[in-house]
């Protein structure tokens, strides 16, 4: 069968190539990051790289140890989630369970607009408003701190967590609510005892994806956290994240230098974290749908 004579066969071939290339793309992304990144271990041992705290890529005796950077990422992410999750859940519950539909419709664009603001604009807002405010409220010389990072990043991840949680809450069948209400439970008791537990897998997915979003966010943390590669002892210390390290330094790292390789290894680490978060979320979604 000649391909030119068989547009149907050609079309099927094309769509299949496109779809399967998605698998290849993900594989290639990992492969290239890892392939470049692994070369750092010619200069720094695996153990030192991940567990050491000294990041001095440009000194005459360079050190490539990223523990403080990983911890920076984890702290700012954890802090942002700590602020964002309760607020996002509060919004999600209010909009799906309490508010009249007309109010929910009216407020829906608020979340959508917030989700649509480019991260560099949020970062800019953080830099010009939040950072000076943190400095003056707490009387510290510079507001470029972990705290500023947490505050601004919390705004950034809120829409992700809110939207997915709201979807999860809305997909709880009406009959559950009616059964509980028929027993004389108040609305809040119904939400608390029936709706929330039923939506829990979806809410967990929301928090997981929020975590992935927060740890992968670049511009916001680059602009407001001060970028010092130290393990912070308080929220008023500056920190440096994995993403910000790559963004700030890749421009100066010579192609093929140990510094270049180290930054790729950080990106490979980010890839692995994001991959695990996503896989966990997918697993939860699959399991959730099995019980539905």
């Amino acid at each position, binding site marked *: 069968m000649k391909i030119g004579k068989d*547009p*149907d066969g050609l079309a*099927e071939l*094309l*769509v299949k*190539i496109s*779809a*399967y*290339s*998605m*698998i290849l*793309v*993900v594989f*290639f*992304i990992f492969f*290239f*990051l890892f392939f470049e990144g692994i070369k750092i271990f010619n200069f720094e041992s695996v153990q030192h790289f991940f567990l050491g705290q000294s990041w001095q890529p440009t000194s005459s005796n360079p050190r490539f140890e990223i523990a403080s950077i990983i911890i920076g990422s984890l702290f700012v992410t954890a802090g942002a989630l700590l602020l964002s999750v309760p*607020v*996002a859940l509060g*919004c999600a*519950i*209010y*909009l799906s369970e*309490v508010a009249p539909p007309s109010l929910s419709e009216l*407020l829906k664009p*608020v979340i959508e607009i*917030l989700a*649509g*603001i*480019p*991260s*560099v*604009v949020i970062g*800019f807002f953080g*830099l*010009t*408003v939040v950072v000076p405010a943190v400095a003056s409220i707490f009387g510290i010389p510079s507001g470029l701190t972990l705290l500023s990072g947490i505050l601004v990043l919390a705004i950034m991840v*809120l829409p992700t967590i809110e939207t997915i949680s709201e979807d999860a809450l809305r997909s709880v069948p009406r009959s559950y609510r009616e059964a509980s209400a028929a027993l004389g439970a*108040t*609305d*809040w*008791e119904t939400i608390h005892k029936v709706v929330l537990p039923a939506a829990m897998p979806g809410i967990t997915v929301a928090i997981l*994806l929020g975590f*992935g*979003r927060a740890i*992968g966010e*670049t*511009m916001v943390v*680059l602009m407001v956290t001060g970028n010092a590669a130290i393990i912070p002892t308080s929220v008023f210390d500056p920190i440096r994240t994995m*993403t910000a390290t*790559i*963004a700030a330094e*890749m*421009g100066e790292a010579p192609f093929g230098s140990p510094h270049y390789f180290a930054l*790729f290894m950080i990106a490979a680490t*980010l890839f692995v974290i*994001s*991959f695990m978060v*996503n896989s966990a*979320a997918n697993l939860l979604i699959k399991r959730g749908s099995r019980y539905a």
Partner: protein
Amino acid sequence: MLDRRTTQAVVFSSFLLCVALVVAILFFVLFDIISKGIAMVSWEFLTQPPRNNMREGGILTPMVGTILLSIGAMIAALPVGVLTAIYLSEYAREGRALSLVNSAISNLAGLPSIVFGLFGLAVFVNLFGFGPSLLAGSLTLGLMSLPVIIKTSQEAFASIPFSFREASLALGATKWQTIRHHLLPYAMPGILTGLILGVSRAAGETAPILFTVAAYFLATMPSSVFDQSMALPYHLYILSTQSFNLRATQNVQYGTALVLLSVVLALNSAAIIIRAYFRRKYRW
């Protein structure tokens, strides 16, 4: 009885407070940027390149760069994205291949944007030898926009009633004729929505273009796809963090932020409106 009701009132009020907080934050962000940026935005600001260490002049060059990058990203991503959506909705059968493709797409959607930037650097800039260029930047942004284009297009195909496929096939049309003559035209509004969302994503991102295309300052427009270019988000980042005199560029910063914000939000609103309009129009 009263106790349970009081509890509920307290809890619900605190939820309402959460909503109020989010609304307040959004309005604060928008108000801050609009009120301080609006004075800057003028015809001159939009049609002049930056001058005098970016302290004066406008944002023409970065704006054109962002437009070119968005167009390039969509040229790269749209065909693959739509074909993949067609596979997912028309060809795929339950099984290992489908679940692999699906999980690849969801992983792509979750990858940090800086990781795309680094991949673009390693592959498009270095391995393929494009150098930092519009081409490398567009391909990187295109890759990053793929998931949103696929997802929106797939939803568009899935919402077309099965009966149109049946009617066409029963007339003796082939599967591809059915897709080309019916499904693609009927899915067009949805694909358009995906395209606009993809453009908005590509226009607003900074991290993927840091090392693949963005230039700190260029006096002239790019003249080929192998040239570097300025871009709005990167311009804002540079202005607000690296300029020689931050105070002197403050107005330009706010003006740039406002333009970028307006472009991205206008695109998102357009996508929402198109979707709503066609949902109402096509009640099959």
